[in-house]
């Protein structure tokens, strides 16, 4: 079984996603990075599900996909709002409140 390969893939995706979240200034790119993490989770879940033969992982993955879609919807709406108010979606400009 190729479990390890799947897990490695998941881990790599996860890392890329995390890197994106931390390093990217563009809100949309950050959103996409988060999607990467979620997908790495899905890969993990499916791989584990296959190994254990239980349907839980599949179910979980479906839920994750659905929820991710909702999340991205909300997220994009917010980015839009931000763009409308500031004409920019650079996250590092969002620092009105601190300290």
């Amino acid at each position: 079984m190729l479990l390890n390969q799947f897990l490695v893939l998941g881990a790599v995706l996860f890392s890329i996603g995390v890197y994106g979240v931390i390093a990217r200034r563009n809100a949309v790119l950050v959103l996409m990075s988060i999607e990467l993490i979620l997908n790495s989770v899905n890969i993990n879940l499916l791989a584990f599900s296959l190994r254990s033969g239980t349907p839980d992982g599949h179910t979980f993955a479906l839920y994750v996909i659905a929820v991710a879609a909702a999340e991205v919807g909300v997220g994009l709406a917010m980015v839009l709002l931000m763009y409308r108010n500031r004409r920019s979606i650079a996250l590092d400009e969002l620092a009105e409140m601190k300290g």
Partner: protein
Amino acid sequence: MLNALLAAGWSAPVVDYHAIAPEMVLAGGLVLLLLLDLFLSDAKKWVLTPVASFTLLGAFIPVLTVALGTEGARSMFDGRYVVDDFSLVLKALFLLAGYVVVLISADHIREGNYYEGEYWFLLLTSILGMVMMASSRDLVSIFVALEFLSIPAYMMAAWRKRDPKSNEAGIKYYLLGVFASAVMLYGMSLLYGISGSTKLTDIGTALGENLTSIRALAVLFVVVGFAFKVSAVPFHTWAPDTYEGAPTPVTAFLSVASKAAGFVALVTVVFVAVPGSHEVWQPVFWILSALTMTVGNVMALRQTNIVRMLAYSSVAQGGFILMPLAVAGIEGVQQAALRSVVTYLLLYAATNLGVFGIVIAVARKTRSGEISSYGGLFGYAPGLAALMTIFMASLAGIPPLGGWFGKFTAFQALISAGTNWSYALAVVGAVNSVVAFGYYGNVLREMWMKPAPHGDTSPVKVPSAIGVALAITGGSTLVLGVLPGLVIHFGDLAGLTGALGG
């Protein structure tokens, strides 16, 4: 696929409708709100407020009836959704807190010319998510409930669309929230991989007491996700910014209900899914708790904006709630720890909502969020000042006001463990509770000892809804402080189905 499922002997799960009646009432109320919002003219939108509040109160009725029943825990969906005493108490907490939030929001939302219907809809949705969270005993349902309560909250935080601060609050909350839940999900996937099931009790059995690095990693990541939700340091960074930027009633909601939901999930996972891995999470909670209290307190000392101060205060209070978890794995301490968390949450909710009620009421007059705007409050609004004093003192943990008992149970749980580490954390907590008075006392000082800014001593008009909210919260803060026995047994370990020792 469907055939295969049918062939596997599909039978419709038995649903205990009485037990999930609160969720159903809420869902029904949600639909009703949507429809009314669609069809009502702006002039008649005020109807939505009573609808929202009655929905919450309506949902509270089945909570009561189930609680009064003698059937004990009701388990559904193969034990993945359980209505036990623990969940009932917290459901009641969420519903009542929601009700108070409705009370303190009503005038704010109406006068702010916001989207009333949508606001109530989102608020109720989020509460529904919390109610579900209280019963979830499965990774999937926990995840879904978490997102259910979070996503509306993101939007509510950004509710004042034209206000860049509100935008900022929403976006920060959103991005970090999603990121944290993604990390948590990764941990969950690992948990699933290890145990082969998403059901918490199965995981608990499968994990046992053996530790491997992968298990540690899984547990840690899951804890991180919830730690974010309860804004434990260093995962708290979103909280001050979001609290400050969001509309004040939303802040109240986040700081109480949302935080409580995070703790519910945390407690469920810790006690049901990973009790055996306490060697991982005990030190983690120890560090988190100490850090959270200390950082929250010292940061709060410097704040000049009351909401931001309350944000840090809420962070610090989270540290106190976390305290008993640092010893919750030790034999014999679980009971005290769980009880402490639940009791603390109840008392904290009553007090903190009251504080926000006053903040909203005062801000209606002063139009300022600065602590200095409370100057002379005792002179021109003695009632509000006295209530605020009660709330602040309660947060500071001064008997005989509610908060002290929360702290007391936390210390009690810690010391019952009797290890050096627990004593050390108790001393850290003791010192922190003193430091905390530095900023709570600052508010008291402004109100009692400073003159009103600009000599403006016109009285504060308190809307009746907020008045009711203050009466509820103030009353419970006082009564629970004097007679904490009323709430403490809600945290019995036996009430948490599947928990170790329960």
